[in-house]
């Protein structure tokens, strides 16, 4: 990000002074409102006893938080959120590196193969969740069930027995292509002369990968981790259309828990408290990641 910011404060030209305030305001003012007002209202709601089914709304102090923090659903949701983020990230980085290196090799029809690998990233989440749920993972008519049955391996009830893993597979199917795209773009900017020189010196493919490609990828990998974490903390549609957070709370993440508390149970106060917890979590991750990335940038 640093290279973007090196604009310097020098004034260009001797023309009359331009007042930048009115030019910037139309973009910045709405964002300021958007960034602070709803969050402040959330914070206020989280301190209220406020249920849409209960006519009495009163100040509740930290009741919502103490209730939430002792509620096993929250711990489950936190754990599920974390497991989903870490699992999908591991798949994205591992497979993403592998696919990117592979798609960088010369082969016939490479450009078409690249498009095919990237395509799932552009599929809307509700569509990808339903393709997997119905056409592939369905325990009776799904293709995977047919294959495992033909191999005498029995049938896996994906969303019943492995709900979080199943959601994770679907989400990973969307985000591995993203990682591949970013890492492939980064590999292509690798200095070809350096690669050729290393090859002339007799470097093997494996050591080339570990000593030249991987160090070059450190920064793009950090960036993939940052961007994917932001999106993965808020996985929602994939859960809604496949498991509805179940069975029980087995595949409920923080986002889904807040949705359930507020829009299905009408508990505005409790839902807001959950939302605030999500914001805090995202900020901790963001801070940590921004630091890592910033260190990587210089």
């Amino acid at each position, binding site marked *: 990000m640093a290279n973007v910011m090196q604009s310097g404060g020098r004034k260009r030209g001797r023309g009359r002074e331009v007042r930048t305030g009115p030019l910037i305001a139309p973009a910045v003012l709405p964002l300021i409102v958007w960034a602070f007002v709803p969050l402040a209202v959330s914070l206020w709601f989280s301190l209220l006893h406020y249920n849409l089914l209960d006519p009495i709304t009163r100040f509740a102090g930290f009741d919502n938080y103490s209730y939430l923090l002792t509620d096993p659903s929250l711990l489950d949701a936190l754990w599920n959120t974390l497991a989903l983020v870490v699992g999908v990230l591991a798949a994205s980085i591992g497979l993403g590196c592998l696919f990117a290196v592979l798609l960088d090799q010369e082969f016939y029809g490479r450009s078409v193969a690249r498009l095919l690998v990237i395509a799932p990233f552009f*599929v809307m989440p509700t569509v990808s969740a339903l393709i997997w749920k119905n056409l592939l993972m369905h325990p009776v008519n799904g293709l995977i069930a047919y294959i495992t049955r033909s191999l005498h391996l029995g049938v896996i009830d994906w969303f019943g027995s492995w709900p979080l893993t199943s959601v994770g597979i679907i989400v990973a199917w969307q985000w591995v292509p993203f990682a591949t795209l970013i890492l492939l773009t980064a590999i292509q900017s690798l200095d070809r002369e350096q690669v050729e020189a290393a090859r002339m010196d007799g470097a093997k493919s494996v050591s080339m990968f570990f000593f030249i490609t991987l160090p070059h990828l450190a920064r793009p990998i950090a960036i993939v981790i940052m961007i994917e974490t932001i999106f993965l903390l808020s996985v929602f549609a994939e859960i809604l259309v496949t498991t509805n957070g179940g069975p029980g709370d087995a595949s409920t993440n923080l986002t889904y828990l807040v949705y359930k508390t507020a829009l299905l149970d009408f508990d505005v106060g409790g839902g807001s408290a959950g939302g605030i917890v999500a914001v805090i979590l995202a900020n901790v991750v*963001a801070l940590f990641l921004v630091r890592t990335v910033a260190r990587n940038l210089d």
Partner: protein
Amino acid sequence: MAMRRKTKRKIGMTVLGWAVALLVAFPIFWMTLAAFKTEIDAIATPPLLFFSPTLENFAEVHSRADYPVFAANSIFISVSATAVAILLALPAAYAMAFHPSKRTKDLLLWMLSTKMMPAVGVLIPMYLFFKAAHLLDTTYGLILIYILMNLPIVVWMIYSFFRDVPKEILEAARMDGARPLQQVSMLLVPLALPGIASTALLSIILCWNEAFWSINLTATQARPLTAFIASFSSPEGLFWAKLSAASLLAIAPIVIFGFMTQRQLVRGLTFGAVK
């Protein structure tokens, strides 16, 4: 010898590369097949790879289910939100690129940081505000959210494209007395048009595929395709062929947009850190 080894390697890579590509894209391929099957063929065991294709699902999806309405909603919402975001972003990007101050950098970073706030943190206030303002289930409500959601990326991308424009051209225009907004509309927009176009494509993709707000803030009238497809999760989900046909129509334009704008997309989504 060396030549032959090289060819061998290339053939090996071709097999490997295509195996991975076909495996990754398989769900899309399988859905595309299902879209042309009858409902009975779609759930047949063993699954059918060869069958007599039919177009009846597409006809059905179009006539029932109000599909054209949802498609129109998706188009209207993504295009309007993108257009407004770009209009708001142009002057700001101009000011930041050509008249930077000490705070420009902080301002840009702050704008990007607003993207890190999880939507669920503000879902409830927004929902209640929408309810009070009668914005629930309206396209305008979603457009408003999407403008705010994409504004940081749009400003940032246009800013980075403006910085590629040679300063001298702008200098000349200023000498001739062109005011800032004239400089933007008559000079910068035409010069940076390819960049602005890819910014628009990226923003349209993000709006089109957005599922959290669209599912929570629309019900019937303003429903875009993401929320419409989500409704297939229960009872109607039994109609796999129709689901597949509707899904294919919903993703086809955006996948093509995505292919067209790959490189700019990398630049935009990584805030310029990977080019």
